[in-house]
């Protein structure tokens, strides 16, 4: 057994697992995704080095298995993260369609940023017309993906499913625009309640 190489490989596997977890599963920051490639390479390198280090010069001593068990536990925990953490209850899609037409101007939606109320499980189709002089975009933070940025005069349509009941915010994701007022309330209510959509 080559102790130096053994320690290095255990270290590489540990770092690689953490990197892959942060990049793919942790859902902390999108930019962590950029790190996944190098983390994967480090992980593969560690896995390739481990048996060479262990079996060099003869059968490995029994203690050398302990870090590997720890790594397997870390690995199961990190790679199996989505399965271990209880997923949020699936919202059944009711199939009810809600169409919303918004006009985006320079630093407002429909001039007053009205509240949007939709029933849970409905398919929301948002159409935004840019009547301003600069690019804008649309996102219901925590519910919908971010739209592309669209320029003056363009119209953008996106649809998404209204998930968990709660109060969210819709906004323009162009830096600085939400602070300037392009932000309003987006409320998802239970489907049996009466809905008012502006």
């Amino acid at each position, binding site marked *: 057994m080559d102790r130096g190489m053994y320690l290095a490989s255990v270290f590489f596997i540990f770092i690689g697992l953490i990197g892959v977890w942060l990049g793919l599963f942790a859902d902390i920051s999108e930019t962590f995704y950029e790190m996944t490639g190098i983390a994967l390479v480090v992980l593969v390198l560690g896995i390739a080095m481990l048996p060479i280090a262990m079996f060099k*010069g003869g059968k490995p001593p029994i203690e050398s298995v302990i870090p590997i068990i720890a790594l397997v536990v870390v690995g199961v925990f990190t790679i199996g993260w989505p399965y271990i953490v209880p997923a949020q209850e699936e919202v059944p899609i009711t199939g009810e369609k809600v169409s919303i037409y918004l006009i985006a101007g320079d630093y407002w939606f429909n001039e007053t940023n009205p509240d949007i109320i939709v029933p849970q499980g409905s398919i929301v189709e948002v159409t935004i017309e840019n009547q301003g002089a600069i690019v804008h975009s649309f996102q219901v933070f925590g519910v919908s993906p971010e739209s592309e940025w669209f320029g003056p005069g363009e119209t953008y349509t996106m649809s998404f499913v209204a998930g968990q009941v709660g109060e969210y915010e819709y906004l323009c994701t162009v830096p600085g625009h939400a602070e300037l007022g392009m932000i309003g309330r987006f409320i998802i209510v239970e489907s049996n309640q009466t809905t008012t959509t502006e």
Partner: protein
Amino acid sequence: MSQEEKKPTLIDKVIEGYEWTIKRLERTILFGIRLVIPNKIVSPHGFLGMLTFITFIVLGVTGVLLMFYYRPTLTDAYDSVKLINDEIDFGMVIRNIHYHASNLMIFLAVYHLFYQLFSSRYKIRNELIWVTGVILGTLTIVEAYIGYDLIMNIRAVLAINIGAALTYSTPFIGPLIANVVIGTGFNDLILRIYTLHVLLFPMIMIILFTIHFPRNLVFDPGMVGIIIGSLFITSALFPVPLGDKYSPDVPAQVTVPEWYINPLYALLRTELDKFLMGVLLPTLFIMMFMVVPFVDRSKGMKLSDRPIALGIGVSGILQSLVTTVWGFYVDPDPRKSYLERIAIDPYLFFGVLILINIVSFGGAYLYSKYAKKIQPAPKRTRQEPIKISQDTIEGIVYAMVIAEFFVVGVSLYMYLLGDLTFGLIATGLSLIIFGFISYGIRLITSR
């Protein structure tokens, strides 16, 4: 007598010419360096530097090929890279290998540094080699950094902006350097960093190699095959995206630089003084490694005898890891402004770094103090050797030779078909099999 008068055959002439050349080459510098090919299977930790150098050569070869099509002007740079990537035969392959080889070279160089640090190789009159090694490592990172600036996509311009801001913030010599490197704008800048990237920095590195290389170089063809093969496979599996073309009217996007300058990016995002964060602290970090042989004067070679080196090593690894990962973190909340999203709280950031230093240096000190008490002298237990019969190994080697022919055939066929990705994977696989064959032969002959 008749045998002596026999006319020399062609083979005799070739051998004679070979000996003639070798005798003349002995008078040159070439034979001053001795390549040692190990006759047993040895750990690659001993020749990580050689592997780094092989990667440098791969970078040189692919870089020269890229130079045929790259145009270093502001308007053409991105388009020429796009042309190489999309249109030119094998252009995508060459570009991917060049990119991944730069990552690999930095990784191997850093690995080399930490292995030499922990195994105290700098002690046996190797101080000069150590210092030039640290300089070479820094140059490698700078070289890779200006290399990816040449693409002129949004990511590159972010990196250029960081570099320019740091240059201007340096007192006294900063404006001078800016005059030389940046000139009057992007057009000057890109031509100049291109010259630095393809000529000046590689030249400086090659000159430094003469002070860095030890006289006996271990050259292990098997490991070289495995490393380069893995590099090819990685290049085929993870093609590097081109990114969006930079143009001045597109608003700033949230993006992060390459992993090796992320520590610097994290330091700058604390929004303290640029010169202090971006120039002084990284220089101090590099100096911390450079002075290791001069502050660690202990006689012992074991880690427990060298608390300073152990502390520097552990804190170096942890600080690099934490700052790299932190550099990748950007607040995902789009409600905040761009500056708010990329800002890092300096109190938290430096708190963590100081804590890392306290823990690693304190831990190293405690380890050196109590290691002998906790650990009894290691018992001399003989490891039971694993017995594999000679026939089995020979059989495996023969099977690998057949597989090698097959894989080389497949790769050539794939290149003919035009499937570059699969062809590159097969080429990489053939190099890896070559490495294993060479190890198998070594295993047979060393018994």
